[in-house]
């Protein structure tokens, strides 16, 4: 019954592997989603509260049953508290990821991180300058040590404002100051959110939501931004690099190692090990043609951006990749790693390795990585992966990979434009490019897999809107073939002309999900060049298939930074129409941007086009009726 698979995904590799998984008796995320139906409406509406032990409580949305929790909180308060905690968790995840990178930077400075080093010294120096760390005539490692310390201070609560907030346009910072939501410390805002949502603290749903914005800003202009910049310093700032995507990137005749998760700290060392001559020789001894490293999710994106490492799939396909039977080893770090994977792998020969001291999984071997043991440990486990090639059984790789171009950091985009953002601004002013949209976020079985990302992106580029994307969205459009220069054939005439001249795809891969901050930096550069605020730009954000708390934080920092953002799935807020109205309308008055929710990507595309044209009109540029 192939219709079942067609209902689940638009990607050919996923459909075929879903069928195989069924045959192999492997349960997938879609099966579990089906088993969970119907899902609890209280929770879907944000109306259940588990914050204290006088509870748990829930509010009857129809008004007859209980209208207040035991503590007295009404629907507005409960919904706002729940949303606040969701954003705190998302901000914490990104920011803690950033902290891990800062710790590697510190270890490098102390010479305690064998294998790691400073790959982009220019960025180190410019960051140091931003942080007020002296650079003149100083040794890179010394600067690195001071920069790491300065960044660590951003995590604490000593400051009145995060350092990198200064990157935002002047007008934006004014907005934040006026509302009192300038982020002060990365950990502080999350910690304060947990405090405010404790029973009996902040019971103003509006003030809770404002703090949620501040908390999200501490991620976007703090934790995530540090994560991206320090990754660039340690592993190099991405440059356009050819790569390929879908499950076909696994090689039938090679040892396949897949890295999955978010943080590049482990995978960079794994990559080095995979390239080492002696291990490749060992693979040949085993009868394999070599060692093939492939990525999944954002760990994959980090390697793709910097080294062109191919991408096997995105969030919903992580189980299916194992069902190919072609993976000798999957190495995971953290975030978005389904706890089912160990179980899935047990049906095949794949060895599963968890590496982070803060992330354990059932059915995985735990091999803890730290900066001081990473290089050696990576070699050890890659060797084990090669040895596992002996146990390989039947392999099913029914697709050929799709070519893609990755590596569009802000520096790379500006580079492609000839060193300044002017040409892009000119194209926008001339109306050839109507505007830009950041299409980001995860997969979610509520939405047909990849359908939201691919459809929205197709409609936007067709209408001359440049798309920049990250995370699982970026993987979806790579698989769909939108990330090659030739993909301008899908673009409208203006976008086609500009991208054709610059020899870039109409859809630019900007990295992992922490790399969404690259979009903020780009937007700030454009706003500064025009002397306006981000909220005045003909640009929008979208998360057509989002699922995670991290995505909720991203959405909030986009909106708080002035970017109109269209969500696919509905966040758990409909229990309070006050909260819904504030987030979808009221925020316009406060931060000049708001959310919209539209699960149908065709309609989401219309919303974004309309918004872009509206902004063009306000800037005095030609505007179309949408």
């Amino acid at each position, binding site marked *: 019954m192939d219709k*079942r698979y067609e209902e689940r995904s638009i990607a050919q590799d996923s459909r075929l592997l879903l069928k195989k998984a069924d045959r192999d*008796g492997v349960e997938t995320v879609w099966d579990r989603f089906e088993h969970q139906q119907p899902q609890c409406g209280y929770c879907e509406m944000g109306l259940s509260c588990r914050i204290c032990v006088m509870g748990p409580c829930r509010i009857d949305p129809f008004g007859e049953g209980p209208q207040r929790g035991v503590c007295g909180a009404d629907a507005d308060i409960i919904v706002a508290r729940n949303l606040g905690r969701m954003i705190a968790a998302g901000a914490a995840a990104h920011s803690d990821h950033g902290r891990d990178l800062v710790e590697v930077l510190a270890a490098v400075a102390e010479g305690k991180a064998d294998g790691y080093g400073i790959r982009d010294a220019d960025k180190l120096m410019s960051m140091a300058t931003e942080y007020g760390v002296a650079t003149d005539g100083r040794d890179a490692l010394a600067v690195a040590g001071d920069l790491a310390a300065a960044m660590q201070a951003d995590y604490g609560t000593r400051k009145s404002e995060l350092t990198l907030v200064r990157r935002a346009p002047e007008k934006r910072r004014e907005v934040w100051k006026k509302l009192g939501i300038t982020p002060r410390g990365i950990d502080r805002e999350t910690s304060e959110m947990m405090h405010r949502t404790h029973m009996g603290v902040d019971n103003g749903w509006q003030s809770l939501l404002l703090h949620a914005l501040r908390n999200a800003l501490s991620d976007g202009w703090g934790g995530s931004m540090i994560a991206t910049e320090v990754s660039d310093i340690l592993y190099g700032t991405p440059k356009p690099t050819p790569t390929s995507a879908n499950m076909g990137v696994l090689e039938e005749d090679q040892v396949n190692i897949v890295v999955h998760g978010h943080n590049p700290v482990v995978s960079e060392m794994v990559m080095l090990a995979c390239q080492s001559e002696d291990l490749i020789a060992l693979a040949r001894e085993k009868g394999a043609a070599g060692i093939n490293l492939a990525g999944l999710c954002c760990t994959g994106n980090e390697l793709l951006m910097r080294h062109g490492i191919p991408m096997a799939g995105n969030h919903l396909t992580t189980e299916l990749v194992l069902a190919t039977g072609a993976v000798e080893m999957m190495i995971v770090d953290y975030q978005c790693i389904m706890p089912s994977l160990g179980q899935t792998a047990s049906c095949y020969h794949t060895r599963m390795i968890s590496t982070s001291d803060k992330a354990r999984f059932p059915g995985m071997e735990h091999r803890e990585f730290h900066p001081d043991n990473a290089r050696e440990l990576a070699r050890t486990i890659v060797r084990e992966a090669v040895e596992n090639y002996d146990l390989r059984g039947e392999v099913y790789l029914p697709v050929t990979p799709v070519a893609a171009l990755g590596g569009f950091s802000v520096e790379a985009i500006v580079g492609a434009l000839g060193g300044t953002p002017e040409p892009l601004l000119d194209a926008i002013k001339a109306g050839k490019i109507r505007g830009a949209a950041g299409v980001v976020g995860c997969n979610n079985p509520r939405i047909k897999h990849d359908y939201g990302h691919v459809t929205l992106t197709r409609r936007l580029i067709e209408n001359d809107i440049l798309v920049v994307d990250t995370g699982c969205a970026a993987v979806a459009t790579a698989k769909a073939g939108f990330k090659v220069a030739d993909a301008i054939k899908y673009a409208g005439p203006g976008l086609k002309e500009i991208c054709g001249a610059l020899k870039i795809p109409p859809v630019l891969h900007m990295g992992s999900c922490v790399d969404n901050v690259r979009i903020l930096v780009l937007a700030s550069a454009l706003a500064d060049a025009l002397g306006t605020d981000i909220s005045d730009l003909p640009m929008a954000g979208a998360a057509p298939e989002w699922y995670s708390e991290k995505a909720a934080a991203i959405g909030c920092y986009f909106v708080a930074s002035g970017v109109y953002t269209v969500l696919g799935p509905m966040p758990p807020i409909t229990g309070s129409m006050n909260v819904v109205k504030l987030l979808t309308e009221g925020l316009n008055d406060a931060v000049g941007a708001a959310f919209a929710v539209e699960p149908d990507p065709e309609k989401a595309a219309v919303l974004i086009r309309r918004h872009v044209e509206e902004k063009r009109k306000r800037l005095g540029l030609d505007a179309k009726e949408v």
Partner: protein
Amino acid sequence: MSYVIIGNGVAGVHAAEAIRRIDPDGEITLIGDELFPPYCRPMISLVLEGAVTPDALPIRNDRFYDDLGIAPILGSRVEDIDVDNRTVKIANGETVPFDKLLIASGADPRPIKAEGLDLKNIFYMRTEGHVRSMLTALPKVQKALVLGGGLVGFKAAYGLMRRGIATTMLIRSGHPLSMQVDAAAGELVRENLMGRGLDVRVGASVTAFEGRGRVERAVLADGTTLSCDMAVIGKGVLPALSFVPRDKIGVDLGVLVDAHQETGAKGIYAAGDAAESTDIARRSRWVNAIWPEAVDQGRIAGMNMAGRAVAYPGSLSRNVIRIFDMDVMSGGVVTPETDSVYDVIHFHDPKRKRYRKLVFREDRLAGFVLVNAVEQGGVMLSLIRSETPVVVPRERLAAPSFNWSTLLPRAG
């Protein structure tokens, strides 16, 4: 008004009760061959199996005839019906007059053609009496043969296995339950039974039984022999109609009846395994020899006989059987001819041992087979019976999550 009912099976009993509810004064005569009180025929296999004792069989208590004011004539067979003079003749030559007559004589096991059928320890399994004699024979039995892979054959084999007897099942067709399920489900059933130690041989039939007084072996069509000290014949049933004058009362396989269970001869009705009515799913005449149809038809015939015109919507094939840990349910049209008006969808989940087959005619469900997870079968049967158009995607009916609310109009 005098009513005569031939057969004290479930159809006859329900008819008698329905008549009495409407007509408190009419004379009701119930002529039955069996002496045992009205009982649950399907449960006799549970007696064989040892799951229940015979005292669990009766469906009505001893006072049933008295309470309803019925005159029973038990242990006698009806030999003839005189349609014109409105009497029935019973074995001792006595005649019983009637104003309204119900033929509820049920069915007899379909006989087979083979030599040596008069040997001892060869049984049919239709009545409580049959099972009683089987039980008497059992202590000396080690190896049994069951002929036929239908429902009754199955229940016999299952009962014997539960008694610890090595059992071989011989099936003429390619898979068990060929009247109830399709080949795929039949194969699942066969695998399951083989796994449990039943020896199933397909495409096999018996030409002769041999033995000295008692059966000792069976000779198969291919010339091979199988030793056994007991044989049960379960090759289906035929309506028990030897006494029905075919020139006066229309008979096809069963007695032909209209929507009120009445035959072509006015005032003469038929119900249960003896009657042939319209099958809702097949949209043609059919004998659906199953318990719930006998209940319904008996009740409806009784009401019509007592003067309340009640139409019977037609019958519907359906069956459920539980064999060890496997449940198999089917209903309506299960094996339509290829390139007919029917569309078929399948769903097979080997890991959870689930199989679903749905048969559609245009936008209506016409039949299904379920292996395991049979709880929603009643919803499907009611879809077939009510001939409700299926407007939701068909795959939803085959999905494991299917439930009654899947059929409700969309929210919002």
